[in-house]
């Protein structure tokens, strides 16, 4: 439908318009989209944007697109979408309103387009004013030798109760799992027992309970007592074997007694 209507319109463009359109075609890449192009076109109307004739603008735009396609310029899809929309708008504006048709009226659509153009222009004016302001590093300046703020870092250490507990657990478990070594202080060796008994044997003319042969300080702690007793008994057996002593036990679990051998005699008991 736009075909038929745009044809005569192209012809009706003023010379000035046509020159403008041609100029535009040359820098088509320079436009920031269809709205920018429309804004530029509207300037040729030399009117307040609020009074711009959207119908005329639509014609100019469509003519521009027409021209561009005639010159085989590749127009971005945006431009073509806008062209289609403007063609639709134009038809709405030209034809009497159809009460059965839903949607906004041509006037509403035109008003919105005018608003968009005005808003874009307003932003451009604002941009010009903003960029013309005094600017830092061009018109006013910051301190040239800033004195940096020295960061003083203070470290605060923290720990939680859980950290403590884990630390304690770590220490305790480490103790429990150190490589196994015999705890020597609780062990009375047979060599020690033998040495001690050889020295004392000369005084043992009478039967004496071997528990009295235990060294001092080894009878209060059960572990030490056990060790000393065992070693003393083993040492006694060794002395008997060597023939220096004899042992006897009068009954089961009775004390084991020992004395040195003066004369040749057998063991008292088993």
């Amino acid at each position: 439908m736009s075909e038929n209507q745009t044809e005569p319109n192209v012809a009706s463009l003023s010379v000035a318009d046509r020159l403008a359109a041609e100029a535009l075609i040359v820098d088509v890449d320079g436009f920031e989209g269809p709205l920018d192009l429309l804004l530029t076109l509207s300037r040729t109307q030399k009117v307040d944007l609020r009074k711009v004739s959207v119908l005329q603008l639509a014609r100019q735009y469509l003519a521009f697109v027409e021209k561009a396609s005639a010159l085989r310029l590749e127009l971005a899809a945006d431009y073509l979408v806008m062209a289609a929309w403007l063609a639709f708008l134009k038809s709405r504006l030209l034809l009497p309103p159809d009460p059965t048709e839903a949607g906004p009226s041509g006037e509403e659509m035109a008003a919105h387009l005018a608003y968009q153009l005005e808003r874009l222009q307003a932003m451009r004016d604002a941009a010009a004013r903003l960029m013309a302001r005094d600017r830092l590093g061009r018109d006013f300046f910051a301190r040239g030798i800033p004195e940096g703020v020295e960061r003083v870092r203070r470290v605060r250490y923290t720990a939680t109760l859980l950290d403590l507990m884990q630390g304690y657990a770590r220490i305790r478990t480490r103790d429990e799992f150190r490589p196994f070594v015999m705890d020597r202080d609780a062990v009375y060796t047979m060599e020690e027992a033998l040495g001690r008994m050889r020295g004392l044997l000369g005084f043992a003319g009478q039967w004496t309970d071997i528990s009295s042969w235990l060294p001092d300080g080894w009878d209060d702690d059960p572990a030490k007592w056990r060790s000393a007793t065992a070693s003393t008994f083993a040492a006694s057996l060794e002395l008997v074997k060597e023939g220096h002593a004899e042992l006897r036990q009068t009954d089961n679990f009775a004390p084991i007694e020992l004395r040195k051998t003066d004369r040749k005699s057998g063991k008292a008991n088993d």
Partner: protein
Amino acid sequence: MTDDDDLTPGAAAEGDEPEASLFEAPPMDEQERMVEAILFASAEPVSVRELLSRMPHGSEPVEALRLLKQRYQGRGVTLQRVGEAWAMRTAPDLGYLMQKETVETRKLSRAAIETLVIIAYHQPVTRAEIEEIRGVSVSRGTVDQLLEMEWIRFGRRKMTPGRPVTFVVTESFLDHFGLENARDLPGLKDLRAAGLLENRPPPGMTSLGGSNDEEDDSADQSELFGD
């Protein structure tokens, strides 16, 4: 100079505790010296909060700033408010003496300038809204460039479908253009009065939740530019 009302004690209260200090605060003229030294030393604006944290307990930097601003009135260096912060800057009329210090700012493309301005005047604004205003899609590079220059940053998401991110301008944008705050943008009031800062939906779109959008916007804007 017109915003001395911003320096009322009320404005200070926000950041600090309503102290009954154990230590006596230094005399006000000493506090003024302190603020002077801190601002002088920094090339960047210094916030009131930062001043408070660096000055002795019980100090009133806002009052000190007020006095200092008076003292530097008309001098070669002036006290300039930048958003929530303050900076010392040379007087703009002496810019011609400073050719040596002039820094060549990267030339911004027209697209970048327009995008920046739309963000400044419409903030917080979504990418879709910027595109709607410019009538063309916003290239990623443009936004990246502005973000990199630290003139814009992301604002909070909009409460509309898809929760799109918004853009707002930064303190260093204000600093660069010598603006005390975003309300001081040239012509902002007129533009708003003319209805040119509305996010007016195309006709026929209204029923689609466009009106909701508008409510959000005006709420956001009045929060930011509110006066």
